[in-house]
């Protein structure tokens, strides 16, 4: 069983060991930082910009490199995102840009001070941050989902309520039956009409049920399906 002096040894030894590793990693980090932060690009303007950043406590609302408060936008890549001209106009009168929205303090910066702040933010944006902030990874999928909904929005209401239980179009719908994208290129309208009138007669044993569609509805579905090329 562990004795008290062994426990103390574990505490002191562990602390000493991991402190030593921490100091060694720090030495190596300090060696690498000049290149990773691009020290050569740290002009006098950049340094003045940091002073303004600190004096105004910008971190009290914004985050930079992900650090600060969560009341105002992340600014690591702001120069890249907005461009220097936009930032200059914004800083001249922050409340004019988004009237009635969340307010930034009007600091009455001089043009030189604005130049320094932009220089600082520009330098920040070029630090090697190991990929922060990341590109929004769901953005393409959201865009795709929106597009496909628009493309098939004119389909018959019956298709949406019944057919989609088993069939998908543009990635939306069930998977029990085959997807119907491009069905018009595989089956001509007459064959589609015959099939829908009585699937079992065309292909005995098929899982597709006889939906006993009216002639009118069948015509509507065939007309629409024939547009899926």
């Amino acid at each position: 069983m562990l004795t008290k002096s062994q426990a103390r040894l574990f505490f002191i030894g562990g602390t000493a060991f991991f402190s030593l590793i921490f100091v060694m990693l720090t030495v190596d980090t300090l060696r690498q930082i000049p290149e990773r932060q691009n020290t050569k690009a740290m002009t006098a303007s950049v340094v003045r910009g940091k002073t303004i950043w600190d004096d105004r406590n910008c971190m009290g609302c914004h985050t930079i490199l992900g650090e600060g408060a969560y009341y105002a936008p992340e600014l690591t890549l702001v120069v890249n995102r907005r461009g220097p001209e936009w930032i200059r106009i914004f800083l001249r009168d922050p409340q004019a840009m988004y009237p009635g929205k969340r307010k930034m303090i009007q600091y009455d910066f001089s043009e030189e001070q604005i130049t320094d702040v932009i220089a600082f933010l520009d330098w920040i944006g070029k630090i090697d941050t190991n990929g922060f902030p990341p590109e929004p990874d769901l953005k393409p999928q959201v865009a795709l989902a929106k597009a496909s909904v628009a493309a098939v929005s004119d389909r018959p209401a019956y298709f949406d309520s019944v057919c989609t239980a088993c069939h998908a179009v543009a990635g939306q719908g069930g998977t029990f039956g085959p997807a119907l994208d491009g069905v018009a290129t595989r089956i001509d309208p007459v064959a589609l009409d015959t099939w829908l009138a009585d699937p079992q007669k065309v292909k005995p044993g098929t899982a597709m049920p006889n939906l006993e569609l009216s002639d009118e509805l069948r015509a509507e579905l065939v007309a629409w399906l024939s547009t899926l090329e």
Partner: protein
Amino acid sequence: MKFRSQRVAYLFFATSLLLFSLQIVFGFIMGFAHMGYDVLHDVIPFNAARTSHLNLLVFWLLSGFMGAAYYIVPEEADRELHSEKLAVIQWAGLVIVGVTAIIGFQFEWWEGRKFLEIPRPLDYLVVVDVLLFLYVVGRTALGAERFTTTGSVLLVGLTAAALLYLPGMITFESQVMDSYFRWWVVHLWVEGVWELIMGGILSFLLIKLTGVDRELIEKWLYVIVGFTFLSGILGTGHHYYYIGAPEYWLLVGGIFSALEPLAFLGMALYAVTMARRGGMNHPNRIALFWTVGCGIMSFVGAGFLGFAHTLPQVNLWTHGTIITAMHGHMAFWGAYAMLVLAMISYAMPNMTGRKLFSGWAPEWAFWISNVGMIGMTGAFAVAGIAQVYMERKIGMDFLAVQEAVEVHFAGVVLAACLLTVGIGMFIWNFVQYGLPNDEAVGQGG
């Protein structure tokens, strides 16, 4: 209380509760601003409210730790404090620096560095004040015939906390370097040496409240604080993922942050096991509530919720979002706020000789404030997760997302009202105890 000079702790505890109340007020200002009602924008803009909120927290916790030390050290050293007068001077110094800092923040007298906003001239006063504090408790301990493990761990923690304040006073031209060393203070405090202070205070409370053998409690104290440093020192790496430091911090920080919950799990098991072993029959049940609650909530808030967002794969998306506020609130509450409230609950009846711990008010104060804090954490979590998906993963505009999550801040504010009621009841109970009483000197407890 055993010794007359322990009563000086009262000043620190009263200060703690006063500053805590003020912290809550600034919290409400921020909560309303997030809901879209930034009505005080021209008087107290968000960055002033935020800086005041954070620094009041640090001040009231430190005041609580100092009060705890002034109460604990004489008992562990078995003698009066080296000088009660110096302790009172030190308290006055702390109050003056604190009040000056909070007022200064309203006039932009600050350094815009999260958690370390106190301007440099006041930093030097903090150092002088803390040195005076360490002198008083240190002399008390060194002059004793014997000094316990509990007392030593507490003092080592306090001394290390003072030393680690210094890297925060170096001026850097580079944001990267500034950030790197700022975490030496902030991280190595809250996930390092403050846990020593926490371990020391918990150990003292458990010894007093459970009656379990001191040797056993102190042995496990070493194991727990051992785990703290084993994980916490290299765990600093989770602050170095994306600030311009080398890529290996993703690996180092990821692994050791994942181990950090172990120390807090240790604290939780420690408190629960010792309390059960002692039979939970100490008359001051409410102090035991806060003590065991502190162990458990520190594991949930600091350990589990910390783990949940320090993995590099998760943190890449959650870094710098409301998720951080979610974790931060329950972590500080569980590990440190509840600890100070536990210490106050234990010490007040002993200092005043009045046993006001058995009424309904202190018990309801415990439950209501905890339910309030859990509610706040939940609301922050919903807002944070929504923000991460909309802003970070889908790429929606920042302001559009903030408007979408405004409703969850109504949840934060409602839950904060509960917390406020609980803390109000706690303070009411504190006031009813009255001042320390000489008749209580020499009584056990």
